C-alpha cells in the first residue's frame, strides 16, 4: 500500500532476451535491503507460475540463482537500482505479457510478535506490458 508499490514493475521493465523474459523490478521499501530480504517472489507470466528453481536474478552486476540469495547477506539491493528477474519464458521483442508479481520483502530490522520474526512487506503487481529489444533505451 503506497505510491512506491505501483513502481515495482514499470512501463519499460520488460526485455525479450535470447534466453527468456527479463523483468526489471524496483523496491517498494525506502532503503536498501540485504539480498536475503527477497523472501517471497511469486511470479506469474501470462497465467503460468514461474518456478523459483529456474528463476535467476541480476543485481549489482552479479547474476545469481534465486535460491542463492538467502546466503548473500553481505550484498544489498540499493534504493534506486533495478533488480532483474530472468524468467525462462519464450518471448520476442514487441510481444505483450501479463506480469503478476507478489513481492514480499523481509524487513530485517523490524521484528514482530513474541517470536521476533521480521515484518514481511508485500507489494502486488498485475500489469500487461510489451517486451523491448535488448539494449533498447527507454
Amino acid at each position, binding site marked *: *500500500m*503506497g*505510491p*512506491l508499490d505501483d513502481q515495482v514493475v514499470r512501463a519499460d521493465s520488460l526485455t525479450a532476451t535470447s534466453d527468456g523474459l527479463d523483468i526489471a523490478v524496483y523496491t517498494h521499501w*525506502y532503503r*536498501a535491503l540485504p539480498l*536475503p530480504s527477497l523472501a517471497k517472489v511469486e511470479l506469474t507470466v501470462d497465467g503460468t507460475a514461474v518456478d523459483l528453481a529456474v528463476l535467476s536474478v541480476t543485481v549489482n552486476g552479479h547474476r545469481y540463482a534465486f535460491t542463492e540469495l*538467502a546466503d548473500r547477506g553481505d550484498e544489498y539491493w540499493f*534504493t534506486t537500482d533495478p533488480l532483474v528477474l530472468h524468467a525462462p519464458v519464450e518471448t520476442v521483442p514487441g510481444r505483450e505479457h501479463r506480469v503478476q508479481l507478489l513481492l514480499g520483502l523481509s524487513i530485517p530490522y523490524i521484528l514482530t510478535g513474541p517470536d*521476533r520474526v521480521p515484518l514481511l512487506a508485500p507489494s502486488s503487481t498485475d500489469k500487461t506490458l510489451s517486451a523491448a529489444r535488448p539494449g533498447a533505451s527507454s
Partner: protein
Amino acid sequence: MTDIAPGLPRLGTTLFSLTLEQRQPGRDLRSLIGEVAARDLGPGLEMVAFQSLRGWPHLDEAAAREVRGTIDDSGLTPSCLAVNLDLALYPGRLLSDDEAFEYIAVQLGGAAALGFPAVRVGIESGPPVLSRLLPLAEQLGVKIGVEIHAPMTIDAPPVAALKELFTRLDTEWLGFIPDFSASMQAVPSAVDDAHRSAGIAPELTALAKEVWGEPGPTMAKFPELERRAAELGATPPQIGNIKMIFTMHGRMAPERWADFFPHVIHVHGKFYGVADGEDQSIDYPAIGRVLREQGYTGFISSEYEAHVYTARHSAFDQVRAHHDMLKRLFEAERPVAAR
C-alpha cells in the same frame, strides 16, 4: 537556513522526507542535498544511510570524501545519520550480540568519516549492544541515539530498560531520539488517499479512526478492530493495512516527553502534512512546550512521512511549511532559560 532564535531547538531536514523525490529521473544525492539547502530547509541535515548511500555499510575513502564534499558544498550541518541493525539479516535466525556489535560498529565508523556527530539506531539495539558500543562512540566522537517511534512509548519495557541504562551510565554518548509519531492526536488525513487506492471502503477507514481514538493500549484494541472490520466485509490484507495505522501512529501523552530528558540527543519532527500552518494529527504546541521547558537546543529533523500514503504533495513544500510552523511556535514564547 531557517534561522531560529538562540536558546531554542535548531531546525533541519532528513532526506527520508524526500523518499519519492529520490526516485524521480535525474535525481541523485547531490541534487537532493542541494535543493534542501537552496530552499533554506537546514541548517541540520540527516539521512538514512541505507537509503541515501550506495554501497553502505561499506564506505571507501573516495566515497566518503565525495559525500562529505557534497555536504560541505551545501553549507548544511550534518546532524544525524540513521543507521540500522538488521538483526534478521539471515533467514531463520537473529544476529548474535557479537555480530550485532560489528554491524553497528562499522556504521559508526562510517558516520564519523562523513562528519556526523550522532547516529540513530532503532529499538532493536538493546542495552547489551549499546553498552559495548559506548567506548567506540566516545572514541569516534559520535553519539548513539535510540529512536522511540510509534508504537513504543516511554513506558514500554524496552524503552524503560534503555532509560535505566542511560541513567545508570550517565553518559552524553548514548540517549534517546524521540519521534513525534509516538504522540499523535488524530490519524492523518493522508491515510484516506492510501485506503482509497487500496480499495478499502470509507466505512472501514472511519472504523479504524474511531477505534484508534478510543482510550486504552494499542494492542488491546486489535481484537475489537478485527471483529468489527470483518463485520464490515474487510479482507485479511485490508485488516492488515488498517492495523498498520495503529502501529505507525502512537497515542502517548505529549507531556510524557519530559521523561525522555535529560537523555535526548536528537529529535525526529515526524509529520504527515501541514495545512494552513497547522498539523492536524500531531499536537506540536504541547510537545514544543516540553522541549522548551527542558531547554532542548539540539536539532529537530523535519521528517515528512505521508509519502507512504500519498504522492499528492511535494515533500519540499511540506518541509517548508513545517519549518515555518515550528519557527512560529518556538518563537511565540521566549526560551525558558532566557527568562
